[in-house]
């Protein structure tokens, strides 16, 4: 192969001016696209047919729906107070998220929906959520309402007997609403308070 040929080959492989311009243009479009579409740590479920609303009772017996929390970001977690592990960890994290948000922490409402209303009486629920943060609210329904609510959120739960008692398998995801009352994100249990807070800051902008 002559030197000339090699030079030619290199020239051929070099991207043309037009290609470069197109690539640059695409990159720009990509960038502006990023600016418009927010990137979250959680799963973006905006517009999906789930968690559209709920109607549950708070420990004072007052009926609560999403409309009660308009203007605030809302985090909903399903669980039960006999849970030694995942539920307290989720609520400890929720309290930490609230702290990480600083002043905006007041614009976050945390709701804990029990999947075990048979044992989670209003008294237990109230004391339980207050142990993590006095602003957190425990919500419950009767068995049918609990089942309907879980179905709306695509949350799975199941009573499983254990030696002397029973435990509840349940979906350990946190559902996040924006201040207009739209379900936007689903965050996983493995995600950190920092990751939760980053997403909430974007929703609270």
């Amino acid at each position, binding site marked *: 192969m002559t030197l000339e040929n090699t030079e030619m080959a290199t020239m051929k492989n070099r991207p043309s001016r037009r290609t470069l311009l197109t690539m640059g243009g695409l990159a720009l479009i990509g960038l502006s696209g990023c600016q418009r579409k927010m990137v979250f740590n959680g799963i973006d479920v905006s517009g999906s047919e789930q968690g559209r609303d709920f109607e549950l009772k708070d420990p004072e017996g007052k009926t609560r729906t999403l409309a009660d929390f308009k203007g605030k970001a809302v985090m909903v977690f399903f669980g039960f107070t006999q849970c030694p592990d*995942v539920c307290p960890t989720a609520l400890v994290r929720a309290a930490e998220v609230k*702290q990480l948000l600083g002043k905006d922490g007041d614009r976050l409402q945390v709701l804990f929906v029990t999947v075990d209303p048979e044992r989670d009486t209003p008294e237990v629920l109230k004391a339980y959520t207050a142990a993590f943060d006095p602003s957190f609210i425990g919500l419950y329904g009767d068995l049918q309402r609990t089942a309907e609510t879980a179905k709306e959120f695509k949350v799975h739960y199941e009573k499983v007997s254990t030696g002397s008692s029973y435990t509840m398998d349940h979906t350990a995801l946190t559902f996040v609403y924006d201040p207009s009352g739209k379900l936007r994100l689903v965050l996983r249990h493995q995600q950190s308070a920092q990751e939760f807070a980053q997403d909430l800051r974007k929703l609270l902008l």
Partner: protein
Amino acid sequence: MTSIFRFAAVALALIASSAHAQITVKDAWVRATVPQQKATGAFMQLQSAKDTRLVSASSPVSPNVEVHEMSMQDNTMKMRQVPAVDLPAAKTVELKPGGYHVMLLNLPGPIKEGETVPLTLTFESKAGERETVEVQAQVRPLNSGSAPAEHGGHGSKAGYAH
């Protein structure tokens, strides 16, 4: 007769206590409960000089104590009683949120922060020899993460990093 039995009991206890030295339990703690809450978990670090397994636990504060494992499958939390937790020789096995724990069930009263909960842990060797270890587990607040109390400041990432 009685004295013979007593002698035998003391002798057995001595044998048992010398075996105990082989198993160490560190940072044992129990999560506090609120009134009417009927269950909670106990967590700790276990280490044994020889291969053994934790087969059961008991406590005067709870009529039902079980060894459980938490697992996450497709974002669903599952808790199951396990027959045993293996302790390979010289390896620290942690019972911590996100994994194994000792469940205290059907609690007759609340477990209060600052108190201690006595736990009796029963271990079984491969040869089938059983030994027990007594532990005083500290009661930590309900809102404790999984990090040891002394590291459990605010912003403690350790609580969730599994």
